[in-house]
Each structure stands twice: as structure tokens, then as C-alpha cells.
């Protein structure tokens, strides 16, 4: 098992928030999301149910718009998307304006059957117009040597 000290990357980026942008949530956006997933849950589709809220993974559609700084890892020759985790903290509603920031949360190494791998974990925060965090999305990327 390697320690973080052995991994060379731009450590000045660790925990430094980068502003990504703002996204307006519309009812049409939620409707389209529900249509594409064939969603029928009245919480997300029926306004008479007490006002719709967004399905729990709606924020994921914005993740393709998140551009992250290059942390200049000096390891491996291939990078793969390893997975993601979503934390739903407060509901998202039509009319919300979400402000998005991202930060490098951690970099760590693991050694498995195929050798050493370095994981780069980013946390992206979605907050609404009242400053309440609605969603946290953590994405992991793994760097490894192909051969």
C-alpha cells in the first residue's frame, strides 16, 4: 500500500473550490428527465401531489458540464472513470437556481492484483438560491499503468 506522500500531483488543488456555473431547474427539465426514464412516481410527475420535486439523480445530468483542472498526476498512462456517489441533502424543485462548485477531495493509492492504482476523487456541490446544499456528487477516477 502506498502513501499519499509518494504520489506526485499538484497538491495546491486539494480542497480548492472551483466555480463551475449555475443551472436553472425548470419543470420542463424535470418532465423530460421523467419521460426519458419512464418515471411515473407522482412525487416527480404530478403537481397536484403537493408540488413536484426532482428525481434524486437529476443533478447527474449536469456532471458532463463539469470541467476539472488537471492535477498533473505523475503516474500511469491510462485514466478510467471508477464510479460515483450521490448524496441527496435537500430537495430540488422547479424554479431553483443551482450554483455548482467542485473540489479535489482526495488522492490516494491502492495496490491490487493488477498493481498500483492511484485514485483521484472530486466532490461537486450543488447549492440552491437559498444557499442550501441540495446534492453532493463524488466522482472517482483511477490512474493505472496499462502494461
Amino acid at each position: 500500500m502506498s502513501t499519499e506522500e509518494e504520489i506526485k500531483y499538484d497538491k495546491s488543488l486539494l480542497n480548492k473550490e472551483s466555480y463551475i456555473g449555475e443551472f436553472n431547474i425548470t419543470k420542463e427539465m424535470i418532465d423530460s428527465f421523467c419521460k426519458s426514464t419512464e418515471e411515473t412516481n407522482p412525487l416527480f410527475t404530478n403537481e397536484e401531489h403537493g408540488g413536484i420535486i426532482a428525481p434524486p439523480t437529476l443533478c447527474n445530468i449536469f456532471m458532463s458540464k463539469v470541467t476539472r483542472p488537471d492535477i498533473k498526476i505523475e503516474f500511469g498512462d491510462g485514466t478510467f472513470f471508477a464510479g460515483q456517489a450521490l448524496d441527496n441533502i435537500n430537495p430540488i424543485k422547479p424554479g431553483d437556481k443551482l450554483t455548482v462548485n467542485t473540489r479535489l477531495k482526495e488522492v490516494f493509492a491502492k495496490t491490487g492484483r493488477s498493481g498500483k492504482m492511484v485514485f483521484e476523487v472530486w466532490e461537486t456541490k450543488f447549492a440552491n438560491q437559498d444557499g442550501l446544499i441540495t446534492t453532493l456528487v463524488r466522482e472517482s477516477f483511477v490512474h493505472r499503468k496499462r502494461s
Partner: protein
Amino acid sequence: MATNIAFDEIDLGDEIGPSDKMITTNQVFEFVKILESKIEASRFTDSEFAKNEGLNEPIVPGALTTAVMAQFISNWATNLKIKTLDVIFRHMVPHNTTLKLIGIFTDKFTEDGSDQLQCDVFLQDENEVKLVIGKATIIVTKN
């Protein structure tokens, strides 16, 4: 859609599903159109583009796959709310093929007065190969 479920009715090892699901090309196009006014050729929408990226065929966007897995869990009962969902993509998910969703409850606990469940969830292909694996923490609301 199901009805409410009582926290006490759920035991570790209880399963959700299995449930068959197909994500069609039309659904992928609808999904891509949420943010894009015009559908550009990509690994999700175009066979040639996908082949040039070394894929056999266009694939389902990861965000759509995740949405389907979340939907599978949250629609099992009317009083479930997904608190967290972790997913690991093991293989590409193709369009227009039969997929199988399965969930298994692995833990239950009460935290700060909130009844919660942990559930492993799998998206498999027809050969029961796990394409995406996930773990959800679910709040069981009392109403």
C-alpha cells in the same frame, strides 16, 4: 406502483425485484435532449462514433443508468427516499437489450430518529453479468 412499506416489515436479505428493464435508443435521445437542443453524434447516440471509440455499439449514458437504478429502488414503495447512491460501472450498458435489476437489503438502522435501509442494487445483462453495481441508503418515511 407499490404502497407504503413499514420499516419493521423489512428484513436483511429481503429482495427487491428482479425486474426486467430495457433502455431504448429513444429514451437515450430524450435524455440527451434535456440539456442539448440538438443531438450531436456521440458514443451515446451514433454507431459510427461509438465504433471509432472502440465500442461495439452506442451505450447508455452513465447518468441515465444511475437514474434507472434509483427509480427501481425508490418506486418499490411510496414512502422511500434515496439518501445516498454509490455506483460502480463495471461494463458498458447497451441500448435496446433486456436488463435485470435486483436489490438486496443489507442493513437497517435508525439514525437521528430516521429509519434507514441499506440496499445493494445490481444492473445485470441477460447473462446475469453485473454491468453496474450500487449501494443505496434509503430513508423510510413514516407517512
